[in-house]
């Protein structure tokens, strides 16, 4: 209950801050522009809208999620509101979990609204909404959840701007690295020691590429089998639990 109160308090920030409304207008403007584009009088061209639209939705959702989640703890510490909070019978673990849930609510809320506008544009343009759209929605939420966890963890040690930069770097670099490691692991000429090392690295790094279903969605490939979807959900839950475990430990040790 205490965790939920902290989470809901954080969510109110989304409504109060102007960032969200500005990004929402940006997205609506971009989608309206894409929607109005005409290509040689050919009708029913839709994939470019799916492609650019979904990328924009993800980008803007991350632009909401990262600053909000990275602000959660430092803002409380800076404004010293963390002291009255901790003077109540609330553990530091509850504060971290509550702040994380608040970040999730903000990110999920923002993404859901953006995604709804995106879906509306697709439907009006004559596109079909299938299972892949639901899987893309679910996987995007999972991506935001893992990014929020990282951002919250880094916020215990870093300033807000450094945190956002590091988390974005982590997102981009590991996306690229995991593809390279995968190629190396699948190559035939890999010795045992290098294989073990790369396997270890592959387990350790976050796999943001798991959540990217853009190619499938844009080019009308088949949806992922349920078994794979559950595996990725499980992977995400375990990964987030591990990050939050270390975040709670670090926050408990932090001198406030």
């Amino acid at each position, binding site marked *: 209950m205490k965790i939920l109160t902290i989470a809901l308090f954080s969510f109110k920030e989304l409504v109060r801050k102007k960032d969200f409304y500005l990004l929402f207008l940006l997205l609506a403007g971009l989608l309206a522009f894409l929607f109005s*584009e005409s*290509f*040689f*009088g*050919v009708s*029913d*061209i*839709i*994939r*470019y809208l799916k492609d650019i639209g979904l990328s924009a939705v993800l980008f803007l959702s991350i632009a909401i999620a990262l600053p909000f989640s990275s602000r959660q703890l430092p803002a409380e510490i800076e404004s010293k509101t963390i002291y009255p909070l901790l003077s109540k019978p609330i553990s530091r673990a509850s504060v971290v979990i509550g702040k994380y849930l608040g970040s999730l609510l903000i990110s999920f809320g923002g993404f859901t609204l953006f995604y709804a506008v995106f879906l509306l544009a697709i439907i009006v343009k004559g596109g079909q909404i299938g299972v892949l759209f639901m899987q893309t929605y679910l996987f995007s939420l999972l991506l935001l959840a893992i990014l929020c966890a990282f951002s919250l963890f880094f916020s215990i040690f870093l300033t807000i701007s450094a945190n956002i930069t590091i988390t974005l770097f982590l997102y981009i670099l590991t996306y690229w690295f*995991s593809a390279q490691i*995968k190629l190396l*692991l*699948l190559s*035939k000429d890999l010795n045992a020691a290098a294989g073990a090392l790369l*396997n270890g690295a*592959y*387990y350790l790094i976050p*796999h943001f*590429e*798991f959540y990217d*279903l853009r*190619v*499938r969605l*844009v*080019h*009308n*490939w088949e949806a*992922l*089998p349920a078994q*794979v979807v559950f*595996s*990725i959900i499980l*992977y995400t839950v375990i990964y987030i639990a591990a990050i939050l475990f270390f975040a709670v430990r670090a926050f408990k040790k932090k001198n406030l």
Partner: protein
Amino acid sequence: MKAVLVFAIFIFSTIGLSSNIEKYNTGFLEKKGYRDFDKDVLSRVFGELRTYLSSASYINADIYFHGGLYDFHEDCSLFAPAHISSNYEREDGDHNNSHPQKKMLNPLLEIAEKISITQHKHAIGGEEKELLPWMLYSVKLNPKNEKAYIIGGYWLGMRLNKLNEAINFLHEGIKNNPESWEIYLMLGEIYLVTLKDYQNARIYLEKAKDLAKSKKADKFDLRSIYTFLAEAYDKTGYPKESVDLYEKLLKLFPGDEMIKKREIFFKHANM
């Protein structure tokens, strides 16, 4: 009153200054050879980056053609879709990006493999239209991107039956790239093959031939120009020119049986 005065001074000085700076900038850039700079908003925003973005947009069209995968094989390029028979047919063969079967000990690797698209498919049967936005963006970003005009014209004119749009698009390409024999060739091909307008086909193919000569095109390039032009000559009542071109082709490809047969056919037909 003071505020109005300050505002008036601000407005007049900025208008005066900005027009002078603009004149200086345009003059400087024109001296350096950037003639279109003033007309194009994208040039102003992106600078030379637009050429890279234009290439990226063109590559994206290729990716769209392959169902989201980037394929480097020439036999599978945007220009060679004839071997496909059904809508978005799947391709098996060694040019797919599938990895050799290897026992995977890492479950995450297995998930990654299941998620990734390893087989490609071709956009055909009307799906080609999805490539068009990227062709258009490509030439908007860089009007000097000849390839985008040629391939865009090909899809519009030869595959999507949008003949007027194809011709307009290619004419715009010629306007922006007056020395491009490839665009003239594509225009001639559309007139010849799709529209059966042999007079116009001859005009554009002759232009392509002249430009290709001055640009020293290789013999394979000349082969397509000569073959189409010979056909256009034949259809418009110039049999001698048609035979001449086949003789030239035979000199370029002495052992080519198909050219030999065509040459003999035209010679006999015109005797």
